């Protein structure tokens, strides 16, 4: 025999029982981030211009590599959005594989680009690249986190990490179009550095969010007799 609903719980639920619209599936919400990426993909080169050695790279190494990075970034954002639906979160293995794939795509693009077009071979100016890439990634990260917050992520740090690295890859896809330096040291330190920074930023925000949720649960449980 099932016990009746505890009166305290019933009162809390009934006081906020307004109808809610079910969230759209993660793939549908991903379209918002994809649209932002598409707009930036058109807007950034239009504003700044393509890298001066774009013609040396050819279509596939320029646009194909950008597309590969952008799609990998969107895949990570998709996983972050799935984290927002209880029971849909990816396993640790899938998350690790996705992060590994992101690193491999970044490394592959860097090495292939350098092999085709080894100049200019220099390490700098890195801070400018790091800053612009981070600034390009922040809107995508913010958009992703807004979409995640509107859901109910069971692991906010994991969602934040995936969203951050995904946003970083999207930003790096844009940076690949405008930054002419193909020296792998430059790409792997400053470009990858920006991706890691955005990932850590997402992770940090997720940890803060989780700590807040733990405190709130603690207060709820302490309030019980």
């Amino acid at each position, binding site marked *: 025999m*099932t*016990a009746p*609903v*505890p009166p*305290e*719980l019933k009162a*809390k*639920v*009934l006081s*906020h*029982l*307004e*109808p*809610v*619209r*079910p*969230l759209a*599936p993660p793939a549908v919400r991903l379209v918002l981030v994809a649209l932002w990426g598409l707009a930036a993909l058109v807007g950034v080169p239009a504003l700044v211009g393509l890298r001066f050695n774009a013609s040396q790279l050819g279509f596939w190494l320029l646009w194909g590599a950008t597309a590969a990075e952008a799609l990998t970034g969107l895949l990570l954002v998709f996983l972050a959005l799935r984290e*927002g*639906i*209880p*029971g*849909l*979160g*990816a*396993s*640790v*293995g*899938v998350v690790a594989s996705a992060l590994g794939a992101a690193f491999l795509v970044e490394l592959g693009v860097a090495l292939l680009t350098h092999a085709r077009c080894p100049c200019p071979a220099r390490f700098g100016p890195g801070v400018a690249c790091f800053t612009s890439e981070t600034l390009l990634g922040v809107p995508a990260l913010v958009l992703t986190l807004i979409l995640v917050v509107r*859901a*109910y992520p*069971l*692991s906010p740090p994991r969602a934040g990490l995936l969203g951050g690295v995904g946003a970083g890859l999207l930003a790096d896809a844009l940076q690949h179009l405008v930054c002419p330096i193909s020296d792998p040291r430059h790409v792997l330190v400053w470009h990858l550095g920006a991706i890691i920074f955005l990932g850590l930023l997402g992770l940090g925000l997720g940890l803060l969010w989780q700590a807040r*949720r*733990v*405190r709130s*649960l*603690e207060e*709820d*449980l302490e309030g*019980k007799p």
Partner: protein
Amino acid sequence: MAGGNEDRLGQLMVAYQQGDAAGFEGLWEALSAELLGYLRSLCRDPHRAEDLLQETFLNLHRARHTYLPGKPVRPWVYAIARNVFLMSERARRRRLAHEQLAEEELPEVAVASSATAWEGAKDLGHLLAKLPEKTREVLLLHHVAGLSFREVGKVLGLSEGAAKVRAHRALEELRRLAREANP
């Protein structure tokens, strides 16, 4: 109602999302006993499990917009219940660390009437309690709550294959414990 009608649960969830109190009450009626058993098996404290059950339904209420109509309800609900338990463990550990208390003794596993479906006969319940938490959870979710391995994987954040492997190991361990208990 382990292994109960998913369609019915789905209808209750949709009604709940539409603001129907009967939807909430129906979910409570259908799921509270099995969730209580699940939470008891996780925290091994009947009183705490009751608090966690209420907290689970409160979180279920806050997250009700994230249920995707047409999807199975149980993996969604169990994922929330498990998360409430894990959060409460974090809160407890933090409190203990702050208060610098000695490690608390875990209370005996209670096998109350509504939890018997979860832990079966008394002997089996004791054997289950000896299993590590991670392996015990897979057995309970699959063999008692009736979730498929795919659904168990979703609740625990594992792949379907990893859930199967964990369940297999848990059964082996359970057999070993049973042999030791009844030589």
